[in-house]
């Protein structure tokens, strides 16, 4: 894989966002805010950070990726299609009968997925299980296990069971991105269930903690690089993101957590994305 420049990664993130809008509009249901907010992280993970082979999803030297907050899977599907795991046209089958692209990810349906998730809080544990095997049983220190979790998801007890476990076993090949977008279904995370001191929580469980701007691909890349270099501790990267990033009428609004755009909203959203909110013009206008 040729190394992409920062500009190319940023552009890739916008392409993924456009795919997400089109998929959700076609599906008529699904989550908008989270996937848009995660686009920069997915673009960086899939097109810079992770080792994988889309033509051989079970490649024995691949890195693992676990999406713990399964409802954000549209952005993963978009990244996987862009990476060549399956044809991009298939993105439009999201949530339709017979599709491999289920509303929440199902490993057995789509090669390239490592887990089945949706009910929150379990993906981190599954990733920790893989990291345990890589570090202690199969002894493959060159492979890493990447995880994305939501911040609302951190309400789940299962998450902290996993955090304690990974801390005890010092699972240094485990690298977690927390999508700190401050929203969940019933409101802001502060209203629903305050998470702060979030950094302190992870540190007290024995984790190496970084906090970054989750829309700065250079920061994302550097944080992943730092996390890989940390030995003797699992790593969490608290990525501060804007829910709905790139589509101004969705940004920061928790009502877009679990809603798709209608066709007019989708048209408007795609325009915003293609023009970088009016900053550039193109043939589509």
């Amino acid at each position, binding site marked *: 894989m040729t190394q992409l420049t920062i500009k190319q990664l940023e552009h890739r993130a916008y392409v993924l966002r456009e795919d997400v809008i089109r998929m959700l509009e076609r599906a008529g249901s699904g989550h908008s805010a989270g996937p848009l907010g995660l686009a920069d992280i997915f673009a960086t993970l899939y097109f810079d950070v992770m080792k994988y082979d889309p033509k051989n999803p079970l490649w024995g030297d691949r890195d693992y990726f676990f999406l713990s907050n399964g409802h954000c899977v549209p952005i993963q599907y978009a990244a996987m299609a862009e990476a060549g795991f399956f044809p991009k046209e298939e993105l439009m089958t999201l949530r339709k009968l017979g599709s491999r692209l289920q509303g929440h990810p199902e490993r057995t349906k789509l090669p390239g997925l490592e887990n*089945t998730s949706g009910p929150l809080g379990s993906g981190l544990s599954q990733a920790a*299980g893989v990291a345990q095997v*890589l570090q202690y049983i199969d002894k493959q220190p060159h492979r890493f296990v990447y995880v994305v979790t939501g911040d609302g998801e951190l309400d789940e007890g299962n998450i902290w069971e996993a955090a304690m476990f990974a801390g005890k076993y010092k699972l240094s090949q485990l690298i977690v991105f927390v999508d700190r977008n401050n929203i969940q279904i019933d409101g802001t995370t502060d209203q629903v269930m305050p998470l702060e001191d979030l950094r302190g929580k992870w540190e007290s469980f024995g984790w190496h903690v970084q906090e970054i701007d989750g829309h700065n691909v250079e920061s994302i890349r550097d944080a992943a690089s730092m996390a890989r270099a940390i030995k003797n501790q699992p790593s969490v990267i608290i990525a501060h993101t804007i829910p709905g990033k790139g589509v101004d009428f969705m940004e920061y609004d928790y009502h877009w957590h679990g809603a798709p755009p209608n066709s007019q909203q989708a048209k408007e959203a795609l325009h915003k994305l293609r023009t970088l909110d009016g900053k550039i013009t193109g043939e589509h206008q």
Partner: protein
Amino acid sequence: MTYQLVENLFAKDVVAEPIRAGFGRGLKAAGEADERVVALCADLTDSTQMSKFKEAFPERFVEIGVAEQNLVTVASGMARAGKIPFTSSYAAFSPGRNWEQIRTTICLNDQPVVVVGSHAGVSVGPDGATHQMLEDIALMRVLPNMVVIAPGDSVEAEKATQAIAASGKPAYLRLAREKTPIFSLEKSPFEIGKAYVLRTGKDITLLGTGTMTYQLLVTAEELKKHGVDAEVVHVPTIKPLDEATILKSVTKTGRVVTAEEAQINGGFGGAIAELLGEKKPLPLLRIGMKDRFGESGAPDELLEHFGLTGSKIASSVREFIGDTKQKRGKK
């Protein structure tokens, strides 16, 4: 082939051993046979009998702590990394505490994780209702992809554990705490999905699973004294059911009794009721816990109290036969 039983089955000194002890030996043997076998425990390594495996393969044993949700989800991840994980705790906690994780990350995700629920049933004894898991059969058998097995004695548990490890399927293995008389022999058959006729008879079919199979053998002896010729069928695999063996027996006898140390609603009795309802409607008596919780007491005392000993079951069966005869207007 006739199933050969231990000879002095009804003697006072019949050899008895906790079913979980057979699991401990079976897990170690499975670990020797396949290095992909790993074991995870939630702070109950000795009492769930994982210690033998832990001693033999310390690098393949993972202590999870008192965290049953994490227990099965870490196991799911280890399965993704190519391992065959056995997880153990008391059945009240796993699968009692972590059903959704088992559903999503093991069954829907189709990973060969084995959930071992030890200390199931009222015979757990003095610990009381919180620890006497009775709903596990119902909880596990409704899950697609899940195999459910309750071995009848420790010798069979050893074989079942090894068969599950080799199967590559998600499975629930139900174990009991107290000593259970051993009725099977080293050479007795065990295959996942098979039921075994332990004793032939023509008047009634007694279907048993787990600890209750031995009790049914006692029941059949008792019934013989009263002129009732009972057939005893041991059903260690509750899912998938060996429908052919069961239907063949009940078609011959025309009356059916199930026995389990669990809730009859949704449990083994529930499974048999579903089978008979669809394929062979026949009078059915379900022995087990009837929509209530257990309580503290000595194990034997509790089995007696809840009508789960061989002689208590025999009384219930004789009453049942009387009722069905009346309804049929015979004799």
